[in-house]
């Protein structure tokens, strides 16, 4: 049951602080939430991965749809990727990896009882 709460917490906090902080604030948020949540390390990673990945994917896809794929299409071409969705996917995976690793570290360092 704590998993969805952790994921939602990471997304909400990252979203709120994200407007005024640099991109790597997602790592800090995922780490701290992971630390407080005290999941098993594997689950901690999964929570951080899914949270930041989903957050970045949704935000990217939302912006891409509103933009009618103009920017992401060009960025995809710049990085020799097949299309705007792939580019959104790459964005999400980078965010997910950083979030996952940070939350994993948090879980490992957590003193909270499981």
């Amino acid at each position, binding site marked *: 049951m704590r998993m969805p709460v952790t994921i939602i917490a990471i997304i909400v906090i990252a979203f709120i602080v994200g407007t005024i902080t640099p991109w790597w604030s997602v790592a800090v948020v995922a780490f701290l939430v992971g630390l407080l949540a005290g999941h098993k390390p594997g689950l901690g990673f999964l929570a951080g991965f899914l949270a930041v990945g989903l957050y970045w994917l949704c935000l990217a896809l939302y912006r*891409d749809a509103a933009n009618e794929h103009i920017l992401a299409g060009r960025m995809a*071409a710049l990085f020799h990727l097949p299309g705007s969705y792939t580019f959104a996917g*790459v964005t999400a995976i980078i965010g997910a990896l950083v979030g996952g690793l940070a939350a994993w570290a948090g879980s490992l360092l957590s003193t909270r009882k499981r």
Partner: protein
Amino acid sequence: MAWNTTNGKRKRPNKIWGYILVVFTTALVYILDHPLGALPALGPLLDPVHGCWANAEPASFDYNLNEDLPALTGKAIVNFDDQFVPHINATNDHDLYYIQGYLHAWFRLWQMEMQTRAAAGRISEIAGEKALPFDRKQRRKGMVYAAENSLRAAEANPVTKAMLDAYTAGVNQFIATRGKHQLPLEYKLMGFKPEPWTNLKCILLLKYMADDLSGESDDIAHSYLRTLMSEAEFNLLYPDKIPGSSPVVPAGTPFAPATISVSAPPADSSSFVPISATDFESLPQHGKGSNSWALSGSRTASGDPILCNDPHLGLNLPSLWFQVQLSAPGINVCGASLPGAPGVVIGFNDHISWGLTNNYRDVKDFYEIKPVEGDAGKYWFNGQQVPYTTRMERIAVKGKPDYVDTVQYTIHGVLLYDGRYHEKFSTRKLLAVKWMGYEASNEYMAIYKLNRAGNYDEYVDAIQHFECPAQNMIYADRQGHIAIWGQGKFPAKWRGQGKYVMQGLDSSTLWGPVIPMAENPHALDPAQGYLASANENTTDTAYPYPYTGDFVELRAWRINELLAKTAEVTVPDMQAMQGDDYSILAANVLPMMLDACKVYKGKYLDSLRAWDYQLRPYSMCGTVFQHWWKILYSSIWMDDLPNVPGETLPLAERTMQLMLTDSTLRFYDDPRTAKRETLADIIRRSYYQTSQALAEKEKKGSLDWYKVKNTGVRHLAKLDAFSYTGLETGGWGNTINAMKEDHGPSWRMVVQMGKEIEAYGIYPGGQSGNPGSKYYANYLPMWVKGQYNKLHFYPAGKAENSAAKYVWTLKPASK
């Protein structure tokens, strides 16, 4: 996992792994936060909040805006029309230029910064060592020196000082506030931040244009060519005026006698410095040119004058131009502005319209400097040892220590080649270069006054301030007048001065005094009822001051031929004429080429025999002719004149004339063969080579002219993903529709100056410089098809506009 079973066992290894992961994650974040080789920093770039995704402008973005701006003195309204062109309504000049700066920055900040950085030789600072040769060249050319001179002139004049100050404040207002959140995508890709705008940058932009348009010189190549041939032969190949030229100022126009006496040329021996073959390699290709013409009411259906202009410049994205209307008390002007420069550069107001083409009269000359042996700080002039003026050019290089170049200045200008600087075209001789662009001039005064000019006299008064780059300035007004001026600041030269590299030993080769502006070539309301310019020679031989220049004639011939036949002309006729693909070169020279091949058969020849000389996008004949001509032209000249930069070989039009009139020219023969080839032999041989090459090409793809030519509009940072290539356009540099690979009609404008001004325009791009905006290149498809936007021109002083798609309401910030 085993160590998960009890608290005591779990804790320690977990902590260690935890710390390791913290370090690992931090390292990953660090790596993603920094550029990796050519790869930009991916973290900040991909960040969907602030990164590139923030540049994904929603297609339905609401551009309406209410904003308080600190420096405004009154309320101002900006109406964006359905083509996304802003119409600024301000209550005074200050607010007008302040808002123009704010707008330019909003849509084009990165481009403005890059173009002015390029002008100043400051690209290495953001791009690293690879840009150092470019930066050095800009510094060597004295670009900053030139801009600083003109900045002093602009700031000494209270009108232009106020204009520039207001514009600069507007740009900086954007950078200081919105620039932080709305950083253009390219800044994120290149990993740097905007620096504050300055008045100097406004001037640098104009010097960048001046360098582009008047910064080339054939002097060195001509000196070399003169060592390969006699003076008579040189004059045959490179006549000062091509026979049959249709000059900018119509032949027969009377000129006032010269008020400045022109000195006699010094003895020939001293007027030309020989350059040997090993002294240089090649020149960059240039494809710049422009068309303009104006018809008086006697030739139009409406009875009102029509003015047409299409300057051919580098085709880039973000586009060179930004459309705008500027309205304030005393000014109501509409047209194309340059991001980075206040005012409208080409356009029209309530009374007059004007256009520009480049005037290639030579204002850049090379001098050989004789150093004082044993004293590196001095050179000889008039028998005296004269010390150089030294300027240290400090170039910041990203990731490296600053590079310092010492550039020396002589009485003959910048010592470009001093043995310490090497480039493709450098010489071993010590050469200084004198350029009109170095002199303090105030072109912004010309723009300021032009934008407000109400009649011909005010127009003439305005353009007096336009000194460099020299321009053919065409004019039409609502009173029915048409006019043209070959405008610029020109020195009185002796005949032939500056054609070759000159000796710099004494004052005999110095430029003479400046020719009074009133004596610049011009024509007002000529009897023929039209005026035209297309980079051709400025005058016939009646003009009292000798001059030389890098003129071309083919487009001018075609334009004059078409205009001479005009009657009852309409705006759509003129739009069609701007898109004219007719190759006057082919029309003149192809019949003789086909005649030489009359015994030959083949599908290429058969098609050419029925061809209408139109270089249409899908024309195969266009491809065949262009290819054949290229090979033939090289066969005539390149074998005899090796190592001559391509652009300095005789002009295509001169080659054409010689082929038609002189079958004995020694250059037809290929000196590498024992046989003596005639012109017909060379034509046949080049056709054989062409047919072979084209058959090969056809196997791989089509021979459609547009595909072979590959006109493109390319992103300024050369990013293919942000560029458009393979555009379906016809024409070539020598047709009116002057579409080359990366140069072409950068702004097409047709204005009918009637009771109601009817204006049309288009440029290959869009108002927004953001590759993530739907306004990035939305004009491009229309431009490719030769279509135009009707330019909305609203009455002065009427800020409320029901046709506006978006409205900006800007108010002074309450203190």
